[in-house]
């Protein structure tokens, strides 16, 4: 149980990073994001995603635009802002550094 909680904390911390990664590839809407994460350790549900995306938009990391869809009501398509892109680059570097440290410590 203790380790579960620790892993949960790691996953939570990384989720925003992964969202930036996913959104950077294309204009995506929530179902796309959930689909990309489903089946991974980071499988996420709407209940978590919407509040998080909304906070990221407030921090102007992402933005969205409404687009009509063939089936059903219009959807919010998210994309990265310039600030989001900058943060993603920063996080990518940071992640590489962390990885390197971990691997070096293993030797």
């Amino acid at each position, binding site marked *: *149980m203790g380790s579960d*909680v*620790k892993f*949960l*904390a790691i996953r939570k911390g990384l989720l925003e990073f992964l969202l930036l990664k996913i959104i950077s590839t294309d204009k995506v809407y*929530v179902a796309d994001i959930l689909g990309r994460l489903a089946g991974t350790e980071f499988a*996420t*549900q*709407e*209940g*978590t995603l*919407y*509040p*998080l995306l*909304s*906070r990221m*938009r*407030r921090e102007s990391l992402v933005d969205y635009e409404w687009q009509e869809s063939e089936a*059903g*009501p219009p959807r*919010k398509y998210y994309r990265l802002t310039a600030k989001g892109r900058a943060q993603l680059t920063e996080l990518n570097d940071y992640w590489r550094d962390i990885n390197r440290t971990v691997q070096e410590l293993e030797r």
Partner: protein
Amino acid sequence: MNKVTTVNLNGRAFQVEEQAYELLRAYLDEAARLLADDPDYREIMADLEQAIGDKGARHLRSGKNVLAAAEMKRILEEMGPVETGEGVMNAAPEAGAETSGPKRLYLIREGEMIAGVCNGLAAYFGVDPTIVRLVFVVLLFLSGGLIAIAYLVLMFVIPTAQTAEERAAARGLPFNAQELVDQAKRHYAGLKDSTQRWREKRRRDQERAFWRRRERRDPEGPHSSPFDRPQPGYGAQVAAGMVLPLIGVISAVLTVACLFAVVSLFATGEILGWSLPVGVPTWAAILALVAVYAMVTVPLRAVRYASYEALGPRRGWFVFWDGVLWLALVILAWWAAAHYVPGVSDFFQHLFHDWRDIVDVEGHYAALVGAR
């Protein structure tokens, strides 16, 4: 047949079963509570409603235009708990913040086998009820049935978890709105076969709540409510649970004694070798005996009813088990006496013959006529 309600999910109308509506409302209410301080409250709520609507639309097609409770449950499970920086909707443990409420042993009457003792123990120790039941059965064989007595004692002494607060305490969970939502969900899950009962209960609860509100608004007022008994505390319930079986045993012993005395008087005209004074008819002695029995049991009955009262809303259940215990003891006493006490067993033999003689009215009549 279920009542159907129409809901507006972010601008789209959906028809949902009443139970599905209650589930949905519990989810959205809780989400709203969590997101109350979020600057994008409205937008997130709209997003959530939209997502629920999208998922709901997938369950519908032409010819099926109502969302059932089970479908709503699945949809909300897919949605997952609403999570913000400040908190999670679900009871998932947050790192660092080990939240727990008071933990107390309760009988849990949801999914119980007999009285919910194993269920309550399982909740208390945080293990699967099946494990506790298996252990119980093994102990039952190992102890030659003695553990059943422990079960009986626990059954009477441990209070039943009645309210959501008590159910939370039975698991040591904090009682908050989340617990209410969980309760509602669990309640609905087992609802398909007990809708009627639940409706009744809800009606009663609402009535009770109405009276409470009224009472609060007008504390000195003349409206005294039939429901507004003060809820007894845990200690009072435990005490009542301990007193009740004791009273049950005493009253069973008294009943058996009285029955013996009456039968003995009737059959032989004496009680344990003590015969009636000359001139006192048997029926008068029996009447006197019954009167004495009634008088002796008056305080016992008073204590019993006081205990029922202290048990609060679960007294109906208790009256049943108390009756079962009493009946079992009386039958056991008769059986044991008839089999193991030689005097009594002789007495029964005599009784049998006497009884046949008494019943044999024609024989009596013939004897009488013959005597003349």
